[in-house]
């Protein structure tokens, strides 16, 4: 059969030779959206015989060399109806074929890896592409925030106090940098993500498997997210689009904090006072602050305050909650404004886009955040073979601090719950801060600046602002060589400058407090100010400059049934961050005169008398992060049906203290795909596309702490010896090996029933050897109490399912995008000896020490109930109830004695977005869910309650009398508090909860005006939308009404819902 084809082809060619060849140029465009170009297969037939088969490029362009005559053209693309037309050669004009889309089509046909664009039908790797349409259903300044609600295989882990982190297909490690590698167009992006205007984003691709990520080398350890920006299109008339949104952010729910009530706290203070807990503070020569009620108790004891008055104060304080003051006087509704305008167009040789954006957010604390972005991208064909792409973007950001919220207004170590921020008329009041009120109002402080602290006024005296400027430029010069080669040079430069200024006026508490502490009053009464009167200004600047350079050679060639797509090249990357900070004392902000300060001598503290140096507040830093990489990626396809791919990459970076040979890490991957739908046996009506694919790859992670020698860091000038001093930075860790992850991905992409049902199902398994973990080390060795070691070998596997259904029932269009992932991992082998239970009960989870359990598991101490007589919590030692807390939390409890609950990370997670369209209206609802995981909730901790005054509302329901143990698990209060008792309860199994929940991420309502109506005004499209985000949880497994993603620390409140309205216009 094949031979016959060849013969025909040869005969055909002979005819061209004899009759002379003509070139036909053409373009494929979308009938409904003429700006959209289509890459499709073009078959040319004559007399029912195929004479030529080719493909249009990404811009929809194709050219054919044919002999004069009449031909039938068949154009095929999964997303469009098969198009047939008759063409007559010669034809000197550009032929434009308008294809009409399938009613239900796959949205994107190519995916970008940052190195190349791969046709989805031939890709072997695992990609999740999120298009601009589904990203636009959410509103907000930061593009990455939108991924969680719509991405596949992605979760955001909020189980550690170190902030949220993206996880693509589970964690390979908990060490090292947290962020996934962000690729902006062609290059790794090192600036702040908030610099990117979401309206400039065309699509986001998440590279999920080893084959997809391996092209990015060692930095791909935490996954790769490729952001592709919008470009102008060739031969496109000028198009203008405008988008604006206005959002309102609700005040946070401070009650979520569950703090001890004022009444309970007053009772506690009375109890502690009677026990003499405050005696030390009362007599202390450093005059530490005491709360108003303790002061009242002192006066009452001294006989200067009657019992009636004391009780009256107790009643007043008990009825007051400082969180009401926070709500009333400090928190407000936030307002987000977002505008963007873009112009684009293109001619035959040049296409361009110009876009600008303006964001202004005022948050719940009246902090202002402004961002302006400007971006220009050009693509210019200088000759037939030479093409230049360039883009420039400029971002300018400005952040100004607002009021101080909960956790920021503190009296001494914490804030007493009955602090009064304002009187009954709303006039700001002073609260007790560092020192006792009785001392501050005594004659001893005569001559000093006022030492009171008025929280509601103080924020206005300090002006904290940050300016950010970011410039980014990309150049891409590519030259088409013969035989399918293309050479290109890509260059990227970015400079991001952050300037910070904190001006604290002389009226600010900070400045007054510092001036007062240093004030010297001589015996003759003369006053001197070692810290001069005036404002204190802290300035800081950091400049990031990164350059990347990549010569790359591509090879794309089709011979008959064979096709090779290859790319290889080298990449240099240097990033340098320079920083400095400096402080000016005694600043006169009018005349810009600063004061003189002596940093070399000590001054006795005004209150304690201890000798203090004045902090110079200055310093410099310089950091460099350099990479050099070599890469190659080859894919071979046969008949567009079978594809084999392979990639390899080696990276080296300037790890300090590591020999160059150890800096290199080679990584590789291989893949296969088989497009079954191209097989003749599967030519059925209901299968549009069906592809099987498989990849195998190896990726690796290096711990930046890996070093072969001890390194030290120079710190500062010693005030004692006036010489520089240093401390150890990293300790030689010669046993540390690279962490390597091997990943296998098997999956299928499909589209059925003319695209009504499409999606992908992928199974992956990974095996990570030498996983990094912090390990407790004998600190007799002198290098601290933990080191990073290779702690375990793990295996994990998971399933990512992505389904899209498109239904229409009458006039109703109902589309569903469903992402479901499961991920399970376990420890195969644990290398280390430590079995002490408490090592596995840390604020941040450590690698489980038990083989067969999830890599990050929730453990707890076994609970033996409360002692019926005392309300003491009890655990088990050797199977018997025990109250020996030091032993329970020490070496007598092994990890095998702990209760195992389950995984720290959700084992099932995903999201579902339903869109309902009827006539001009589209309503979208996004839900996300996480199942099968556990978290630890917070409860009362008596040690910290006594010291800081911060306590949990569980205090109220604690064990008080025998019999209470029948309905409460909250231990009794004991005085003095015992640290180990509190630690036992904190990590006991009664505080572990199931994390399962479902939340509503957003609801979006879109109204599209009719085209017919708009044509009068020369408007291409106009839509109005409203959006509500963060609608909260609709199902949770825990009965405490907790949001499992916001439980790790105090003042970590779930975001409140934001209501936005907006308009989108295209001219």
């Amino acid at each position, binding site marked *: 059969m094949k031979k016959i084809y060849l013969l025909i082809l040869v005969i055909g060619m002979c005819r061209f030779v004899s009759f002379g060849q003509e070139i036909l140029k053409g373009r494929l465009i979308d009938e409904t959206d003429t700006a959209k170009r289509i890459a499709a297969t073009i078959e040319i037939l004559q007399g029912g015989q195929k004479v030529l088969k080719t493909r249009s490029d990404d811009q929809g362009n194709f050219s054919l060399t044919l002999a004069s005559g009449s031909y039938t053209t068949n154009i095929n693309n999964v997303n469009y109806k098969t198009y047939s037309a008759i063409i007559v050669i010669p034809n000197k004009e550009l032929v434009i074929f308008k294809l009409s889309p399938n009613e239900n089509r796959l949205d994107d046909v190519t995916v970008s890896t940052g190195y190349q664009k791969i046709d989805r039908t031939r890709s072997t790797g695992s990609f999740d592409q999120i298009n601009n349409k589904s990203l636009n259903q959410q509103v907000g300044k930061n593009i990455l925030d939108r991924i969680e609600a719509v991405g596949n295989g992605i979760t955001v882990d909020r189980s550690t106090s170190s902030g949220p982190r993206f996880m693509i297909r589970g964690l390979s490690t908990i060490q090292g940098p947290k962020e996934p590698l962000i690729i902006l167009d062609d290059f790794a992006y090192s600036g702040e993500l908030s610099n990117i205007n979401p309206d400039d984003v065309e699509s986001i691709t998440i590279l999920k498997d080893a084959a997809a990520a391996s092209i990015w080398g060692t930095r791909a350890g935490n996954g790769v997210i490729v952001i592709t920006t919008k470009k102008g299109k060739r031969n496109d008339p000028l198009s203008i689009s405008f988008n604006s949104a206005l959002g309102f952010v609700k005040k946070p729910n401070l009650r979520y904090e569950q703090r001890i009530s004022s009444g309970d706290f007053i009772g506690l203070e009375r109890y502690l006072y009677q026990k003499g807990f405050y005696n030390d503070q009362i007599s202390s020569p450093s005059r530490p602050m005491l709360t108003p009620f303790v002061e009242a108790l002192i006066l009452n004891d001294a006989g200067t305050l009657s019992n009636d008055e004391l009780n009256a104060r107790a009643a007043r304080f008990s009825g007051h909650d400082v969180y009401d003051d926070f709500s009333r006087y400090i928190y407000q509704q936030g307002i987000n404004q977002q505008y963007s305008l873009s112009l684009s167009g293109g001619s035959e040789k040049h296409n361009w886009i110009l876009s600008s954006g303006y964001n202004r957010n005022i948050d719940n604390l009246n902090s202002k955040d402004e961002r302006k972005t400007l971006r220009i991208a050009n693509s210019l064909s200088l000759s037939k073979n030479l093409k230049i792409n360039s883009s420039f973007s400029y971002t300018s950001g400005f952040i100004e601090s607002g009021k101080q919220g909960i956790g920021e207004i503190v009296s001494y170590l914490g804030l007493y719950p009955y602090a009064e921020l304002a009187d009954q008329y709303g006039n700001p009041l002073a609260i007790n801060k560092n020192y006792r009120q009785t001392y501050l109002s005594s004659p001893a402080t005569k001559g000093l600046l006022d030492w009171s602290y008025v929280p509601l006024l103080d924020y206005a005296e300090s002006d904290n602002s940050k300016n950010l400027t970011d410039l980014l430029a990309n150049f891409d010069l590519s030259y088409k060589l013969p035989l399918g080669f293309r050479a290109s040079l890509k260059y990227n430069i970015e400079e991001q400058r952050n300037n910070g200024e904190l001006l604290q006026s002389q009226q600010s508490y900070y400045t007054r407090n510092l001036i007062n502490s240093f004030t010297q009053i001589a015996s003759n009464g003369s006053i001197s100010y070692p810290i001069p009167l005036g404002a204190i200004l802290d300035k800081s600047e950091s400049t990031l400059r990164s350059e990347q350079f990549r010569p790359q050679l591509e090879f794309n060639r089709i011979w008959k049934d064979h096709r090779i797509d290859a790319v290889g090249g080298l990449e240099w990357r240097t990033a340098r961050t320079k920083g400095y900070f400096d402080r000016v004392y005694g600043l006169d902000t009018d005349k810009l005169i600063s004061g003189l300060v002596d940093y070399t001598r000590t001054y006795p503290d005004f209150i304690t008398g201890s000798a203090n140096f004045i902090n110079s507040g200055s310093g410099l830093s310089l950091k460099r992060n350099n990479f050099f990489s070599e890469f190659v990626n080859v894919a071979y396809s046969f008949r567009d049906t079978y594809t084999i791919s392979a990639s390899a990459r080696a990276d080296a970076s300037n790890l300090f203290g590591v020999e160059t040979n150890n800096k290199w890490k080679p990584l590789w991957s291989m893949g296969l795909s088989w497009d079954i739908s191209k097989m003749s046996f599967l030519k059925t009506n209901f299968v549009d596309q069906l592809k099987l694919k498989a990849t195998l790859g190896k990726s690796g992670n290096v711990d930046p702490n890996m070093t072969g020698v001890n390194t030290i860091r120079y710190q500062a000038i010693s005030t004692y010896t006036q010489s*520089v001093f240093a401390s150890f930075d990293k300790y030689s860790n010669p046993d540390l090996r690279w962490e390597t992850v091997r990943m296998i991905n098997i999956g299928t992409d499909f589209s059925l029933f003319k695209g009504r049902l499409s999606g992908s199902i992928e199974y992956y398994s990974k095996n990570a050897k030498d996983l990094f973990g912090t390990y407790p080390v004998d600190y007799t060795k002198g290098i*601290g109490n933990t080191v990073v070691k290779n702690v375990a070998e793990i295996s994990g596997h998971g399933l990512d399912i992505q389904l899209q259904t498109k239904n229409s029932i009458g006039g109703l269009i109902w589309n569903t995008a469903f992402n479901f992932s499961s991920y399970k991992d376990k420890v195969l082998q644990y290398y280390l000896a430590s079995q*002490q239970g408490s090592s596995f009960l840390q604020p941040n989870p450590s690698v489980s020490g038990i083989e067969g359990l999830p890599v990050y598991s929730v453990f707890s101490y076994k609970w033996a109930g409360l002692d019926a007589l005392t309300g003491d919590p009890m655990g088990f030692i050797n199977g018997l109830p025990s109250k020996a807390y030091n032993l329970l939390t020490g070496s007598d409890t092994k990890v095998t004695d702990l209760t195992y609950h389950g995984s720290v990370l959700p084992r099932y997670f995903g999201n579902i977005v339903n869109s309902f369209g009827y006539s001009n209206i589209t309503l979208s609802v996004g839900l996300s869910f996480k199942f099968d995981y556990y978290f630890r909730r917070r409860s009362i901790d008596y040690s910290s309650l006594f010291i800081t005054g911060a306590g949990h509302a569980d205090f109220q329901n604690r064990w008080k009398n025998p019999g209470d143990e029948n309905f409460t698990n909250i231990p009794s209060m004991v005085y003095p508090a015992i640290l180990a008792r509190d630690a036992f309860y904190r990590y006991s199994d009664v505080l572990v909860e199931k994390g399962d929940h479902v939340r509503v991420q957003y609801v979006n309502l879109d109204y599209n005006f009719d085209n017919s109506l708009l044509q009068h005004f020369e408007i291409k499209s106009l839509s109005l939308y409203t959006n509500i985000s963060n609608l909260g949880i609709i199902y949770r497994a825990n009965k405490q009404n907790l949001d499992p993603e916001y439980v790790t620390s105090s003042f970590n409140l779930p975001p409140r819902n934001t209501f936005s309205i907006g308009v989108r216009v295209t001219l």
Partner: protein
Amino acid sequence: MKFRNLICSICCTIIVISNLGCKKILDEKSDQQLVIPTTLVDFQALLDNSGFLNNQDLISAEISADDYYITDTDLAALTNDYQRRMYNWQKDFLFAPRSNEWATTYRAVYYSSTVLEGLDESDLPHNTQFNNIKGQALVFRSKCFLQALGLWGKAYGNANDTDPGIPLRPSTNFNEESYRTTVKEGYEKVVSDLQAAIQLLPDKQVQTTRPSKAAAYGLLARTYLFMGNYTQAAKFADSCLKLHPTLIDYNTLSASDRYPFTSFNNETVFATWIPPATIVNSSRGKIVPELIASYQANDLRKGLYFLQTGSFYYFKGTYFQPALFFGIASDEMYLTLAECQIRSGLVDLGMETLNKLLVKRFKTGTFVPLAASDTETALKIVLAERRKELVMRGIRWMDIKRLNAEGRNIVLSRTINGTIYTLQPNDKRYALPIPEDVISLTGMQQNDR
């Protein structure tokens, strides 16, 4: 063909350039402030990290000793359970896991040992500066070992051949396990290191945070004193005083000052210190009445050392405000010298040495030189003065141990909520328990309590 050649030559050029370019960028420092310690400047910079080397004396020696007491309410009000347990010499859990004095001691040991190993392995010329740095490292490490032996080991004595001491960490390689050597080996190590340091150090340094030859003499005198080797102790106390004889005339100071003594004052030979733990700080730790009562009327120390609030006295006489000074000062050397002279039978000479110190402690013109007819009387006088002078200097605990070892029968007692807790002479609880987590990580032998 030609095209293939072109491609080949482009590739070759790129590879050549890349190797040149990559070498350069890969060798750039990732952080300008990072250094691999190889030069004398680097080693001195490590030793000048006074936060880790000078400011880490063992406060537990003072918490365990008998110069102070605290009230029941104050004891209950302590938020640190470990200090409460240490106060009445409980059996176990006297140190918080992970961050405790064992950790800070061995961090300082690591700093010193790194410098010593770095110097040994280097090709640097053995010049004055080289010797100076090596000597400093030896003194710092000896100071750590000596304080650790005093806290976690039993008193040095005849039976010490087998008494477990402390790990001496012969190398900085962290893959080497820690094990305890004997008390005897520990003291021998300190002695030999200090003797080596004496040969290397200059008489004086730019600042007393850096150990000088005088500091090495002083520390060696202290070491021999704890070992009961009074001849050697006298010899080195005398050597120290030859280099640093200065005493402050207390008449020049003002008792009304919150801190009458300045840091780095003229008596300071070697400044090391530690912030007072909450249990002994100047608003809780009350000085025992018997000590207060022992000062005579014109003794200026009572006013300069103690802050009187009502009938209570709190310590304020530190030589390193606001922290407690545990370092070497000339006053200690006079006392050591006097004691050793008396012990060797030179009673008059010893009393003369003691009087040289005391005359600076009394109101001008009021001091009557002390005299004693026999050794025991003289010894009692000098030991009483030693206690009165060296309050909260981290010395008392070790003094009690050595004096009890020779049978002076000092019984410590604390009264808590009416219960009296005593610590009998030579009780095994004089060696504090090593932090339990260290024991569980290393399998080291725990002190029998």
